[in-house]
C-alpha cells in the first residue's frame, strides 16, 4: 500500500510516491540530492544525519532534531523537514558563527549534524540545555571542548518566530505554518495488511532490519493522534503507545509520578532519538535491556491491547514469556499504557550502568518503586532489572519479600541472595554474566542508598559483611 507523501523539504514542496518505509536520510541524500546531511552510522548513534522535523501544533510548528537514518519517509507527511541547506543564510547563522569562532570544526563531516542540533536548541520551546542538545552527536576530531563552548555561547529557547525575525533563520520559515496547514492529512490508517511491517519510532527496528524495510509495505504508527499523549484518569495515567520518550518525560502528569524523569532521560538514548522512540515501541521490541520498559515495570504498568475492536488489558510484568516472546496476538495493537498513580510518599529510583553515561545501552538497568510506612517499614516494593534475563524482568519474589520489612543490612543481605536466584544473566557484549550479577547487587545497594537514605549508610552496608 503506497501513499503519496506530501511534505516540505527546506523551502521545497515535495510530493513523492517513494516507499513510506524508505529512510528519510536516503530520500534526502539520494533523491533530493542534498549532500550536506551525512551518513555516519545508520543507527542513530553519531548524529551526522540529524535534521529538523517540524510538526504543526496549534497554529505553530514545533521543530525537533531527529536522526534521519531512523525515520520512515512516510512519517514526513504534513511536516517540514529542514536539512543544513535549509538553515543556510547569506552569512553565517549564530550557531554556524559560534562553531567557526570556537574552532569547533575540523574534518567537517559531523559538523552539519551539530549545527542542526544546536539550531534546534535555539528553536525549541522547551528549555533544552547545551549538554542535552549535544547528546546525539559524535565528533571524532575536536574533543568537544570547543563544541561545548560554542553551544554554551548560544541563546536557548529563542523560538522560531524570533529567530526568523532576527534573520537567524531563513525568511521562508515564516510561511511554513500556513503551507503545512494546506497539506491534506494523510489517508486514514487502514487496517494493515498482514504483510506490512509495523513501525512506531523505528529507532531499534531500522537498526535491526533496516535494509529489508524500504521495499516492503509499512504500517506507520509514529505520531498518530489516537496513539499519543498522556491523560490523567482518576487513579492512573493513560499513555498513548506512540508517545515519544521526550513527550512522555515532558508531561507534567508523568513528572508528578516520576519527579526525576528528566534526569533519567539524560541516561536514556539522546535528544534526537528520544524525539522518535516511543513507549509502545520500547515495550513491543521486547529487548531485555529496554530502559523505558524497566522503568514502566517498576511503576507496575498495564497494557491495553486491541485487535479488531476487541480490547484487553495485560499487566506489563506478565506480558513477556521468553526472549522476544509476548502475550500478543498477530495483528494486535498496543494502544495504551496504563500507569497507576503511586501513593504519595512512594519513592522511585532508576539506575543504569553502561560503558558510556549517555546514548549507550545498559549492561544492567534497574528501577525500584518503594512505599515506606510511617514506622519506616516498607509497605510495598516493585523491583525491575534489565539485562539479566531473556525478558525485561520484574523481580516478583524479591519485591514481595521486601513488603512489610524494615530496612537493615540484614534485610539487604537476604534480598541480595534472593535476587541472585531470580536472575539468569548471560555473558555478551554488554558484560560477563559475573559482572551483571555483581551489578545487580550493587544496584540494589544503590536503590537502598538512594531511596532509604535515612535508614542505611553505605559504610554500614559494607561493614555488615
Amino acid at each position, binding site marked *: 500500500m503506497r501513499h503519496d507523501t506530501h511534505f516540505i523539504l527546506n523551502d521545497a514542496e515535495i510530493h513523492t510516491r517513494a516507499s513510506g518505509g524508505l529512510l528519510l536520510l536516503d530520500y534526502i541524500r*539520494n533523491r533530493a540530492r542534498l*549532500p*550536506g*546531511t*551525512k551518513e555516519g*552510522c*545508520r*543507527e542513530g548513534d553519531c548524529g551526522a544525519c540529524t535534521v529538523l522535523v517540524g510538526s504543526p501544533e496549534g497554529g505553530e510548528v514545533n521543530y525537533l532534531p531527529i536522526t534521519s537514518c531512523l525515520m520512515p519517509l512516510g512519517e514526513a507527511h504534513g511536516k517540514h523537514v529542514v*536539512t543544513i*541547506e535549509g538553515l*543556510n543564510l547569506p552569512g*553565517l547563522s549564530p*550557531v554556524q558563527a559560534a562553531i*567557526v569562532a570556537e*574552532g569547533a570544526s*575540523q*574534518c*567537517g*563531516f*559531523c*559538523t*552539519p549534524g551539530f549545527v542542526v542540533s544546536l539550531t534546534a536548541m535555539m528553536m525549541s520551546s522547551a528549555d533544552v540545555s547545551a*549538554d542535552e542538545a*549535544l*547528546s546525539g552527536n*559524535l*565528533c*571524532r*576530531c*575536536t*574533543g*568537544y*571542548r*570547543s*563544541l*561545548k563552548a560554542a553551544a554554551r555561547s548560544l541563546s536557548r529557547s529563542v523560538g522560531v518566530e524570533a529567530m526568523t525575525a532576527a534573520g537567524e533563520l531563513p525568511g521562508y520559515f515564516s510561511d511554513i505554518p500556513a503551507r503545512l496547514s494546506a497539506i491534506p492529512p494523510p489517508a486514514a490508517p487502514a487496517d494493515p495488511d498482514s504483510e506490512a511491517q509495523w513501525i512506531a519510532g523505528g529507532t531499534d527496528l531500522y537498526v535491526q532490519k533496516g*535494509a529489508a524495510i524500504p521495499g516492503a509495505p509499512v504500517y506507520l504508527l509514529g505520531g498518530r493522534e489516537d496513539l499519543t499523549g498522556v491523560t490523567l484518569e482518576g487513579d492512573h495515567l493513560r499513555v498513548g503507545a506512540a508517545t515519544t520518550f521526550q513527550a512522555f518525560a515532558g508531561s507534567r502528569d508523568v513528572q508528578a509520578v516520576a519527579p526525576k524523569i528528566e534526569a533519567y532521560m539524560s541516561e536514556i538514548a539522546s535528544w534526537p532519538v528520544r524525539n522518535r522512540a516511543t513507549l509502545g515501541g520500547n515495550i513491543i521490541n521486547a529487548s531485555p535491556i529496554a530502559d523505558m520498559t524497566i522503568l514502566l515495570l517498576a511503576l507496575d504498568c498495564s497494557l491495553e491491547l486491541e485487535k479488531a475492536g476487541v480490547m484487553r488489558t495485560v499487566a506489563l510484568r506478565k506480558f513477556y514469556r521468553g526472549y522476544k516472546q509476548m502475550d500478543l496476538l498477530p495483528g494486535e495493537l498496543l494502544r495504551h499504557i496504563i500507569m497507576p498513580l503511586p501513593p504519595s510518599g512512594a519513592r522511585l529510583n532508576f539506575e543504569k*550502568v*553502561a*560503558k*558510556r*553515561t*549517555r546514548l549507550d545501552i545498559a*549492561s544492567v538497568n534497574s528501577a525500584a518503586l518503594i512505599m515506606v510506612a510511617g514506622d519506616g517499614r516498607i509497605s510495598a516494593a516493585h523491583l525491575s532489572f534489565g539485562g539479566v534475563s531473556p525478558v525485561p524482568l520484574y523481580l516478583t519474589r524479591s519485591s514481595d519479600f521486601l513488603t512489610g520489612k524494615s530496612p537493615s*543490612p540484614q534485610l539487604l543481605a537476604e534480598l*541480595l541472595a534472593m535476587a*541472585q*536466584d531470580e536472575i539468569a544473566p548471560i555473558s555478551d*557484549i554488554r558484560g560477563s554474566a*559475573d*559482572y551483571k550479577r*555483581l*551489578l545487580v*547487587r*550493587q*544496584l540494589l545497594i*544503590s536503590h537502598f542508598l538512594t531511596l532509604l537514605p535515612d535508614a542505611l549508610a553505605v559504610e554500614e552496608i*559494607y*561493614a555488615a*559483611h
Partner: protein
Amino acid sequence: MLHIDATAHVRGESTYVDDVPAPAGMLYAAIFGSPVAHGSVASLNVEDALAAEGVAAVITAKDIPGENQIGPIIPDEPLLADGAVHYRGQPLAVVLAKSVALARKGAALITVSIDPLPVITDPRKAYENGEIIGAPRTVACGDVEAAFERCDVVVSGSCDMGGQEHVYLETQRSRAVPQEPGRLKIYSSTQSPYAGQRMIARILGIPHNHIEIDVLRLGGAFGGKEDQATQWACVAALSAWVTGQAVEVVLSREEDMRMTGKRHPYLSDFKIGATHDGKILAYQVEHYQNSGAGADLSTAVLERTLLHSTGSYHIPNARIFGVCCRTNLPPNTAFRGFGGPQGMFVIECAITALAEKMNLPVAQLQRRNLLDKSDPFPYGQLMGNDHAIRAWDDAVASYDFAAIHERIDHFNADHFATKKGAALMPVCFGISFTTTYMNQASALLHVYTDGSVGLSTGGVEMGQGLSTNMVLLAARALGIDTGKVRIESTNTTRIANMSPSAASSTTLLNGNAVVLAADQILVRLRTVAAELLSESRADRITIADGEVLNGGKPAGLTWEALVQHAYQSRVGLSAHAFYATPDVHYDKQTEQGEPFAYHACGTAMVEVTLDCVRGTYTVDSVKMVHDLGRPLSESVDLGQIEGGLAQGLGWMSLEDLQYGEDGTLLSGALATYKLPDAHFMPDDIQVKFLEQTDGPIGPYGSKAVGEPPLMYGIALFFALRQAMRAFRPTAEFPFTAPLTPERVLTALYAGDDPGELPRK
C-alpha cells in the same frame, strides 16, 4: 588563523567523495567478505548475485589483470581473497549494481564454501605457533642483567592493551572514473594518494602515470586511511577497469568496522629495577603485537613501539623485544601514535608497579627519571634540546599538583564510596617517519597574473588543519594576505611520489616544501622589483602585507603590480620545491641511529572521580603543558591537542574492541563500540603552551602536534587506578586496558559473592 574550511563545513557545503554528483551510469559496489576467519575456499558461487535485479557485474580475484597484491611493506595481502581466507570480512567478491541497496542485496546472494582452519586471535598463541610477520626485533642498551643485579627493587608484570577502532565519521570510500582508454581517475578518501596510485597500477598491471588520484579532503582518518584506504581505491579502480563504468565504493559503518584494521592490541611483559632512591637502572620488555592477518604497516608500528618503550625516561640499561604476531583478525594498521602509545603505556605500568612496591608516589619516580638533554635513548639518539623536564615542571607548578593531591587526599578521607585519583603523564614523541626515506615532500606553487596563488602539496587535509597551515605558510613566505592563497586538492599528477600524511610530519615536510617553493618565486620577483625600482641590490627588496618594500620602506609597488611586471617580463611564476628532513637515519641491523628530527614533549594531569558502588567514573579535568614551538595557528593546534587527548582517553576507558574466539568482531557497531561524547569529556580541559621554545626544523619554528597529545589520555588509566587503590589499598589490580566500568567493578569486588553483602 581559524580552520580555513570551517565556513564551508558549518554550511554543509564542503564536499566529500560521494557528495559530488555521480557520472552517468555509475555503478555502486558492495563487498562480499568472508564469513569465517580462517579457511580454504572450496567454492565461491556468484551466479545468483549476477542474476539479481540491477546487478551489472561481480568481480572476483580472477578478474584482476595484474598482481593480486596490495601489501605495502610485505607482499602478503591479496586485494580479493583467492584460495584462502585469513580473517572475517576479508573481501572475496565485489558486486556492482545500479544502487547501493541493489548491490548489497546482490552480495547477500553470494555463497561460499570454506573448509575451516584453526582460528587464532591471541598474539602469544600465534607467536608460540611460529605465526609471526617479519623478524622479531630487539633494541638494547647497556648491560641489563648486570644492572638488575645492582637494583634494590625489581618488579615484573604483564600488560594487556586493547585495540582501537578509528571511527572516522566518514567511512572508507572511493570513486573511480574511466578516462580516455587505459587511464583512470580515482577520487579517494585516503591519507596516502601515492599508495593508492602504486597499488592500483600493480593490480591493473599498468604504469603509475596512467592512474590519477585526487583527494580533496577526508572526513577524518587518524591513521585508518593511511594504508587501508588503498584497498577500497583498488576495488573501485578494478571494478571501473573491468566494467568501463564509473564505480563508487562506500563502506557502511558495519562493513567498515568488520573489514578494516584498527590500532594493534598488545600483550607485553615487563621487568623493571631501581635503586632505593628511585633511579631506574634496568628495564626489560617483550611486546607481542596482535598484527592481524596481514603485515599492512605492522612492522613499522612495532618499530615505533620499540623506539618509545622507555617513554620520557632515561633508562641506561634496557632490552626491548617486539614481534608482530599473525592472527586471524583484519590486518591492524596505523592509528594516531602508531605503536608509540603501546610502548609508553607499558613503561608507565612498570613505573607504577615499581612505585607501588616501593610505596613511593608514582610522580616522584616519574620525575626522578625524566630524560635530560644529554641523556640517550636506548637506540642511541640523545634527548638534545627537547623539553621533557621543563614541560613536567611547568605542569606541576602551573596547575599546583601538590595542592590537587592534598585536595584529593582530603576528599578520599571524607568519602567512603566515592574516590578521586589523579595521575601525571609525560609524553616524549619522536617526530619523523622511522622509515627514513619517507621523510620527503614537495610543493607546487603557481602565482597567477592577478596575484592570486594556487598551491598544491603532497599533504592531505583530513581535518587536522593542514590546508590552513599550508595557506598560512605560503602567505607568510610570500608576504601576502592568506586570502590570496588557495589550496588545491592533493593530486598525483601535480605532486608525484608523495609520502602519506602521517607521522605528525605532514606540516613539517610539506610546509618546508611550500616555503622553499615560495622562496624560489621570491628570488625571481625580487630581481624584477629591483630592476623596476632601479635598486642594484635585490636582497634589499622584501614583500610584506602585499606591498613591496625597499630597504624596509614602502616602494609604491603592490604585489599584484609586481606579479604583472614579472609576467610581462617573461619570468616564471610557478615553482616546484622538494624537501627532505636532514640528518635522520636509522640502522635496523644495529637498531641504533637518530631516527627522529626531534621529540615533541609535554605533560598532562588527569583527575577522575570513581563511584565505587557502581564502578562508573567521570573524568573531572585534564590539564596539559605542551611544547608547540612557535605555533602556526594556535586554534588549529589546540584542536589537535584536545582531539588527540579525547582519543587517548577513549582508548583507555570506553573503547572496548571485543572479538569472539572465532574471530568475529563483537563490538562491530557504534551501539556496541562507544567513543567519547560531549558528556564524557570533562568541561575542565586546560592547555598551556610551553613558552620560549623553538621547533628546530619545523617551518617558522613550529612543532609537530598531530599524534603526541593522544598519549596524554594514558594518564586516565593511572588516575583511575589511584582512585581504585584509595578504595581498596591492598588489592592487586591488573594492567589491563581499557579500564571499562566492567573491569573497574570486577576488580574492586574480585572474589565477592554477589549474593552477599560486599566485603570492605
